[in-house]
């Protein structure tokens, strides 16, 4: 799984991170912040390995 970008998206009511807009294998996807989702688990594995950074949401 080749993840080239990841950015948090916020809930406009609560201002909390709600999903991650990521480019995975060249395709932009919205990944839920939810363990068990294969893409989210891989994003967090790469974040913990220090090979990927999730950019903060734009306000």
């Amino acid at each position, binding site marked *: 799984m080749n993840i080239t970008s990841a950015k948090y998206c916020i809930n*406009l*009511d609560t201002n909390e991170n709600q*999903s991650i807009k990521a480019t995975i*294998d060249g395709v932009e*996807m*919205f990944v839920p912040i939810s363990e*068990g*989702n294969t893409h989210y688990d891989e994003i967090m594995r790469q974040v913990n390995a220090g090979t990927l950074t999730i950019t903060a949401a734009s306000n």
Partner: protein
Amino acid sequence: MSTLKVNTIESETPNVTIADGLTVTGVGTVTTLNTTNLINATQLSNRNMIINGAMRVAQRGTSSTTSGYGSVDRFQHTHNGTDEAPTFEQADVASGTTPYTLGFRKSLKVTNGNQTSGAGASDYIYISQRIESQNTANSGWNYTSTSSFITLSFWVKSSVAQEFHGFILSADGTRKLYSFSLGSLSANTWTKVTKTIPGTSDLQFDNDNAQGILFRVAMFRGTDATGTITQNQWGTFDTNVRYPNYTSTWYTTNDATFELTGVQLEVGSVATPFEHRSYGDELQLCKRYYYDMTTSNSAYSKLVIHQNGYFQHPQIKHPVEMRAAPTITFSNVARRALNGSGDTSESISNTTSAKTSWTSYPTNTSNTFQTFIYDYPIKFDSEL
């Protein structure tokens, strides 16, 4: 106690009556069996833990060179190090052949690319299906008992005569691998492969929606994951030794083909006939892991509600509860004035995604009511 050895028992009257206590050890063959009560060790329905084993459902498309999911549902096709990507497609099973005569009309066919640099150490091509752990935990297989079995069966055909290999992997706890050979296949000849697999004391399958069993058949695996391995028994998973040393004839043959269908994994020590499901039933099972909203039209307008300074379209239920909250992939989105005049390109700023429903938020925050046009397909992915 006495032993009677005969070749044939025939009755003069319509029936031979055995009052009770008839025990047959081993596998018997009966042409027709009429019973008033039948108690099976193998369940009669819903016994195949593999989804889409007959390769009938292909929501993403019928042909793909992707390494991942792209052709028939639930089967992941993976390749690495290839000079030319292989093609994975839903193919027709030729009429008159067996398995065609057994009701199989589709296969997953791999057509090799031209691997001009030969077989590299990290090269591989394989087909896999990952099964939710809860489906094995609740299958009835007493998997920690060596006298309880599951049986794997499938049909396979290769254009190149060669021995291929596969494995079953358990993902929970200490990972365990059961490596097996598909036997020496004759070229262009359908062969049924059957493997009866016992439990073992340290197998673990959690009662959850994460990966439990991984079923995999390899067309080729380079030397960085092959070596000395004892097949047909469970062993602790070693990432560096998953297969015996792999013959590369198929891999180095341009346009070599490999076909797979009729994959069944069931509780019990005997491979029963394949459990054919209706297309509708199989499709619903597949949608737990992937589906897309699509239509024959190129675009579809969706009602979007303006609230609190932003737009949100109504929450939509998935057709089935998905395995996990899915990843959502959109096609183009556009914004259109209520009078229907010109579309402006739009983007999605955020989504909510749950197992049962989803919604999205266009980036536009104007106070002017507008229609948002979501091009199809919109894809929902919660594969393992």
